[in-house]
């Protein structure tokens, strides 16, 4: 029975809308803490990514959801049930493996039907065949059923692996670096397809990746991981605009960092005093102690590159220019601050005129776009 208060009671709604949850879930291999007291909820129907470098614990988190790892302590919940010791074959969860793990001795159709055929009582043959055909159509491989696995290209194998998982209509679809083995163009295509498929099916997707572009472009929500812990989670926009630490700012998108010592400024702003004696102002989103080491983060697209100095601009030398179509990426060198990346939109470059390596130029940015972050 649904209480009418559910609509307005965020607590009750939350526990209902979580398809999976970690509560203080810890996984220890000898001395290594692969997952360090993870507490985190996965919402029904969302596309969630675990993003981090190798060894950050993202794969361990995924494998605890799949049932391949039993947490050393803590709880893993699936649809409200504690599943710590429930083996993988009893979990309504499917995984797309990094190297696909397709069965080489079975045809494409047999691979896709594998999960359906394990059900007891055995499902109807015609029903299985129909579901397999529909799954093949969904991954845009109609008619490929009788093919052998080794006759398929990497991209096609990827689609078969996807079809093999979604045909079971799992509560949770786990994707372990699924696009890592594909080339760049194919990867872009699959990103869009995965996203479309997720919206169509309404299945909760959990993706593990070390590729920030992949996570940013597909996910509703991203968990940035480091050393077995979740550092920050939020929408791609939130992580990009409001990172809580230098680590997150560095991992999500590109950024320039100016290191120095922190001090408070007026109206909740802050200042960074660089070793060279320069003072920069910026926004402060996380509490910082005076005299703490901190970094000023400025995104490359927020820096303005000009031929003549405007108020408060810094003089730099252009080192390198990379034409990216819509944007041009400049690498500029500042005498005290070192090398900085500047992204100039095509329009701005047209009105300002281009820069060549060796040119002297000036950089400036709005104070509100600079963010002072904890050095971690």
């Amino acid at each position, binding site marked *: 029975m649904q209480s009418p208060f559910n609509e307005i009671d965020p607590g009750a709604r939350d526990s209902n809308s979580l398809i999976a949850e970690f509560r203080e879930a810890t996984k220890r291999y000898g001395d290594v803490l692969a997952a360090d007291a993870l507490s985190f909820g996965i919402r029904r129907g969302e596309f969630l990514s675990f993003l981090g470098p190798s060894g950050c614990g993202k794969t361990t988190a995924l494998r605890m959801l799949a*049932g*391949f790892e039993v947490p050393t302590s803590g709880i893993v919940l699936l649809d409200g049930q504690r599943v710590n010791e429930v083996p993988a*074959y009893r979990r309504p969860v499917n*995984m797309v493996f990094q190297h696909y793990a397709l069965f080489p001795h079975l045809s494409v159709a047999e691979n896709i039907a594998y999960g359906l055929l*394990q059900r007891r009582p055995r499902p109807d043959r015609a029903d299985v065949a129909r579901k397999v055909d529909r799954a093949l159509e969904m991954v845009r491989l109609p008619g490929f059923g009788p093919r052998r696995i080794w006759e398929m290209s990497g991209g096609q194998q990827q689609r078969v692996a996807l079809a*093999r998982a979604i045909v*079971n209509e799992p509560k949770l679809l786990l994707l372990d670096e699924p696009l890592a083995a594909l080339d760049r163009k194919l990867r872009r295509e699959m990103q869009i397809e995965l996203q479309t498929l997720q919206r169509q099916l309404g299945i909760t997707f959990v993706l593990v990746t070390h590729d920030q572009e992949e996570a940013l472009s597909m996910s509703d929500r991203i968990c940035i991981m480091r050393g077995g812990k979740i550092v920050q989670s939020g929408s791609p926009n939130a992580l990009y605009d409001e990172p809580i630490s230098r680590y997150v700012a560095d991992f999500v998108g590109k950024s320039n960092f100016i290191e120095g010592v922190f001090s408070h400024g007026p109206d909740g702003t802050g200042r960074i005093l660089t070793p060279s004696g320069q003072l920069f102002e910026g926004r402060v989103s996380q509490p910082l102690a005076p005299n703490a080491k901190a970094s000023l983060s400025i995104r490359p697209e927020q820096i303005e590159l000009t031929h003549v100095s405007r108020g408060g601009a810094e003089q730099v030398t252009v080192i390198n220019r990379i034409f990216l179509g819509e944007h041009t990426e400049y690498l500029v060198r500042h005498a005290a601050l070192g090398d900085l990346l500047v992204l100039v939109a095509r329009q701005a470059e047209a009105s300002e005129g281009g820069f060549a390596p060796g040119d002297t130029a000036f950089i400036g940015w709005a104070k509100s776009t600079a963010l002072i972050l904890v050095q971690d």
Partner: protein
Amino acid sequence: MRLYALFVYVFLYLPIAVIAIFSLNAGRHASQFTGFSTQWYAKALSNPFVMEALWTSFVVALCSAIIASIFGTMAALGLQGMKGRVRVLADALIYVAVMVPGIVIGIATLIALVTLFGWINPLLALLAPEGRAPQLAMGYGSLIAAHALFSMSLVIIILRARLAGMDRSLMEASADLYAPPLATFRQVTLPLIFPGILAGFLLSFTFSFDDFIIAFFVAGSETTLPIYVFSSIRRGVTPEINAIGTMVLAVSLLLLIVAQLILRSGTRKGGR
């Protein structure tokens, strides 16, 4: 150097070729070719002693190969689950077992079985004191046991290589797709290692069929084909022996080639 290599091949294969050629000799003597005939094949195949020895060899080879395949597969799967030093040691011991000379295995098996029978037979006599107690002795049982024991290491080596080359995530994928461990074994592991098991079976069969040294020690009153050939030679080499030798060679070669083909096609399909 090429000439040297050529001589090596000549020395290796000439005696075998001579045996095959003289098996087609019409004459009585093994050293004089007097004309083409297949009469010695017919004679060998109609000789009741040859046929009996052939049957013994066949039964021993079949039984020992089946036992070696089953237990070798189980051992290889068990070793796969082991970790670290224990596995390294177990692997090393398997290779040692293959390299131990046949004569050592023969003597060791003989002594072990005789000692074992020495303990068991009095116990059996005690259980049935009427003097009708079955007595264990050398024969089919000891032949099969000794051959199975040796062949098992061949099967283990072949399967270890195959299992090591297998993607472990295939088993995880099967579990992820709701197959319990036994179903995973039946539907994924077994089909993928089956070519290895079959190849191991054929190699075991060939080994047992050809073996003389181990069989000589543990055969008791039984006569396998190699033992028959050995004892006939003491009465002089006839083209009949050549015919038997050629047939054994042909069967062995055929099985070895089949085993190789299975192994190779298996790696191509299963490999990645």
